[in-house]
């Protein structure tokens, strides 16, 4: 849920989002999630639980997956953010995104931006993870549709030729 404070204070925020420097005046109690969605209109980042449990709001901050619902925008001052919109060009998907398509790993799609970003960071570190390693990495991402098997298939086989 959006946060409220009876005595709002303003802050000149400067950060990098998807490779571009962004500067905005914001209120200090604005969550990073709301900044991305409402101020920058980057609505690929989703909100479901708003308390760190589901991973729908996952973004990459300084190279690490984090929950944007648990971070204030002011905490991101001077940091580097990548959202699902910044992962690939519109017409050129990453191997993992293509693998999600090929394995029919997407149903309603709400959890998918978080799943893809979490999967990308795992593959960066460990290009051939076991299914157990994939499950461990995805433990902060909840999907209410797929039952996970196809998501795990997609990550396991990302970049496989044939």
């Amino acid at each position: 849920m959006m946060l409220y404070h009876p005595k709002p204070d303003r802050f000149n925020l400067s950060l990098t989002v998807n490779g571009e420097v962004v500067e905005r005046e914001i209120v200090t109690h604005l969550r990073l999630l709301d900044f991305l969605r409402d101020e920058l209109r980057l609505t690929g980042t989703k909100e479901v639980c708003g308390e760190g449990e589901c991973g729908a709001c996952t973004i990459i901050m300084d190279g690490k997956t984090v929950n944007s619902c648990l971070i204030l925008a002011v905490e991101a001052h001077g940091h580097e953010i990548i959202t699902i919109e910044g992962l690939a060009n519109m017409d050129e998907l990453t191997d993992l995104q293509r693998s999600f398509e090929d394995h029919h790993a997407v149903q309603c799609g709400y959890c998918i931006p978080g799943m893809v970003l979490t999967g990308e960071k795992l593959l960066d570190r460990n290009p051939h993870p076991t299914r157990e390693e994939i499950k461990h990495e995805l433990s902060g991402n909840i999907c209410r549709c797929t039952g996970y098997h196809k998501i795990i298939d997609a990550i396991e086989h990302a970049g496989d030729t044939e």
Partner: protein
Amino acid sequence: MRYYSPASLKEFFKISSQCPNGQKTFLAGGTDLMPCYEQGTPLPDHLIDLKHLRDLHSISVTENTLIIGALTTIQDLHDHPLIQGEFVALYQATHEFAGAQIRHRGTIGGNICNASPAGDLLPPLYAFDAQLILTGPQAERHLPIHEFILGPGKTALLENEILTSISLNRKRLRSQFQKVGLRQSMAISVVNLACTWEEDEDGFSMLEIAAGAVAPTVLILNAFTRAYLENPKKLPKLLQLIDEAIAPIDDIRATANYRRMVLKNLIWAFLTK
């Protein structure tokens, strides 16, 4: 809400002493604080972010001690080779901690200062006899963790004082962490447990068991381990000493009786494997 991000302890104490008591909060990873705010706890008038205190992010090693900065994240603890090698129970607790996103933000200092009876780093830190270094505007003091945590959400921190680091003796103890929750990951522990020990041909020469979520604070089960080391064959009867030491509660996750049963089963399994 005023937001501050001091870059040195000196600057921190200056800011902190200027903010009225009761209207300021110190922010580390925010993984305990932010869910409270989202559930309706009012935000403070002054929020002081500790993350820019660079010196509190490092892990340093000397011949006999490991010193962990309070702002070290759960993930950085997990990835440190010495913790994996010499403090296995602490490593295992970081491995089973939440999900990747929370491990990337949540800190050891936040886990300690939040003082949840179910905090997963606490049983290993009790079992390794962690010393906490607290820094105030005038002085620094050292307290063992069991004197720092006073009850759920209650610590011995004084006004304007922060936890700066955690010191562990490198005693090369063997150790193990176990946790039981309502599902395998992303669940608050119903019971968590850390054991440290040394053994020779005759069995254990030293044994310590720290149990979490079965009392207002983590408990070291001294009476039980002492009696067990004297006469291991009496184990079935000695389990009663565990029952006498703990004071679990019923809550939405589990009943007190279930907690008693799980704790005794975990200890039984550990001692008879």
